[in-house]
């Protein structure tokens, strides 16, 4: 009797999502991309509300209002350094939604065959991504220890739990009426999510967050199959492939395999090696460092997670400005895995008003490093560690690094001599041309700025 408009709106929404990703490719069009994505999502929600199956609006309205009330402050009040945590918690919400919908759908119709298979996949991925994202959030927020926690036989236990969950899921597909199995299946999926993240160190978070993003997308995709909804399939597949390709990029940037990231327990073995013998290093005061920086012709600043922790990005930009004014050529070198999520450093420096054409990717800047007067390393460690190139036994062997060691002078702003996240000692610190600038990244940079400012006239 009545003509349904929602399929047409869904089609438009899917087109919007595709355009959103297309426009995301360059900074000039990226904001248009977000607006298109928002519009697509609005179309999807409105179209769904218009469907004749939807008759009861109170609970929906309450959920939409409550969700917005949580979502707005989450987005607007989070400092930019906390973007990885926000992404993790938001991912947890999305995955939980997907898992609960699958659960409700299961108890509503106890479906058979293909639909049940899709539901099992949806809830498995949803629940495990939920707890895994919460764990990732805990590690990033440092509520939980961010070093990997490992125990003997961990991988066997983890895979065993996943295996049992999959078998139970399979049995549910064959006999959906065995509802008592379902809660066990859910518990195992939740447990696997927790155990999966425990052995993963903070430095591997960029890969893991990208991978969880992919899982959340695939869960939405499976929901699309269960509900026979093409829009969900398309949006889920876009998200799934995006997360997957990003985690591959991250793995490549570390010269590691997926298996190594997920099962490697990376970074807990070397902790005992560091700090056995105190080797001499050269350190410098802010005055000395400022004098060298002021006389340099070219300076490359290499930021790492330490810059984010110290919230030093604004002071770093001031330093870059003051050097530029004195005629120094200042650039920023960005390693793909610097920070705790893909592109983390770019966002922080953009927040501090560093123009993005000053942010140079690793492949493009490495050729210039030998001609650089000063490489200023701020809170980065493993991504400039020459052991990756020289020491085949190093845990980071083969990882592409920023060639800071080639520059004429190396300055490292660092709190103390403690090893980096992977717990590996860094040869760079002991080189003759290296000056260690001990102190908090923000305070030290501020004193550099002060020195250079007062020298100027």
């Amino acid at each position, binding site marked *: 009797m009545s003509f349904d408009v929602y399929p047409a709106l869904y089609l438009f929404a899917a087109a919007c999502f595709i355009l959103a990703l297309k426009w995301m490719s360059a900074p000039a069009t990226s904001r248009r991309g977000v607006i298109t994505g928002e519009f697509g999502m609005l179309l999807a929600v409105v179209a*769904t509300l218009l469907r004749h199956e939807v008759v009861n609006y109170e609970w929906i309205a309450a959920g939409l209002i409550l*969700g917005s009330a949580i979502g707005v402050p989450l987005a607007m009040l989070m400092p930019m350094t906390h973007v990885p945590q926000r992404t993790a918690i938001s991912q947890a919400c*999305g995955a939980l939604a997907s898992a609960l919908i699958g659960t409700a759908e299961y108890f509503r119709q106890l479906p058979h065959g293909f639909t049940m298979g899709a539901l099992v996949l949806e809830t498995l991925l949803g629940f495990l991504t939920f707890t895994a994202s919460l764990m990732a959030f805990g590690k990033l927020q440092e509520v939980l220890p961010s070093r990997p926690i490992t125990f003997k036989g961990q991988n066997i236990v983890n895979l065993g739990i996943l295996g049992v969950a999959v078998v139970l899921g399979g049995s549910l597909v064959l006999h959906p009426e065995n509802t008592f199995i379902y809660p066990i299946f859910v518990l195992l999926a939740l447990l696997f999510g927790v155990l999966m993240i425990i052995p993963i160190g903070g430095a591997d978070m960029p890969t893991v967050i990208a991978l969880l993003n992919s899982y959340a997308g695939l869960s939405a995709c499976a929901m699309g199959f269960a509900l*026979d909804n*093409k829009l*969900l399939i398309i949006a889920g597949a876009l998200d799934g492939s995006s997360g997957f390709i990003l985690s591959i990029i991250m793995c490549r940037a570390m010269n590691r395999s997926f298996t190594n990231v997920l099962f490697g327990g990376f970074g807990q073995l070397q902790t005992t090696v560091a700090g056995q013998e105190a080797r001499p290093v050269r350190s410098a005061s802010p005055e000395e460092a400022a004098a060298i920086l002021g006389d340099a012709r070219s300076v490359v600043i290499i930021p790492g997670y330490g810059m984010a922790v110290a919230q030093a990005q604004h002071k770093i930009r001031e330093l870059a400005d003051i050097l530029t004014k004195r005629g120094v050529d200042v650039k920023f070198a960005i390693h793909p895995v610097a920070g705790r999520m893909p592109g983390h450093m770019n966002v922080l420096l953009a927040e501090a008003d560093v123009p993005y054409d000053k942010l140079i990717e690793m492949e493009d800047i490495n050729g210039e490093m030998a001609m650089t007067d000063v490489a200023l390393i701020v809170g980065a460690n493993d991504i400039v560690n020459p052991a990756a190139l020289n020491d085949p036994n190093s845990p980071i062997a083969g990882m592409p690094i920023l060639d800071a060691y080639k520059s004429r002078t190396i300055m490292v702003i660092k709190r103390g001599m403690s090893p980096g996240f992977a717990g590996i000692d860094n040869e760079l610190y002991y080189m003759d041309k290296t000056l260690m600038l001990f102190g908090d990244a923000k305070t030290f940079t501020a004193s550099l700025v002060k020195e250079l400012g007062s020298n100027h006239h």
Partner: protein
Amino acid sequence: MNYEFGFYVFMLAAFLGFELIRKVSPLLHTPLMSLTNAIASISVVGAILISGEKDASTLSRVLGFIAVTAATTNLVSGFLITDRMLKMFKKREPAKK
């Protein structure tokens, strides 16, 4: 009920996703992740369908309500923070100052 068709849609969308994402500059990887994270909140569609049903059981209603809330949180915060980040990316120091 045509699953085969669904798989074709999935395959095409996944390939398209790979091609589109590969072109994204590493500069924008963080906003890209929050955008795709926001798009994954499309599960709000399923959540609305579950909660809005005519004779839904209490279980469905409660699960649906939590799902709508969680998906909306993901949706709203995902899109807002993506935009907030992208606003900060500037090519040169703005002329006015």
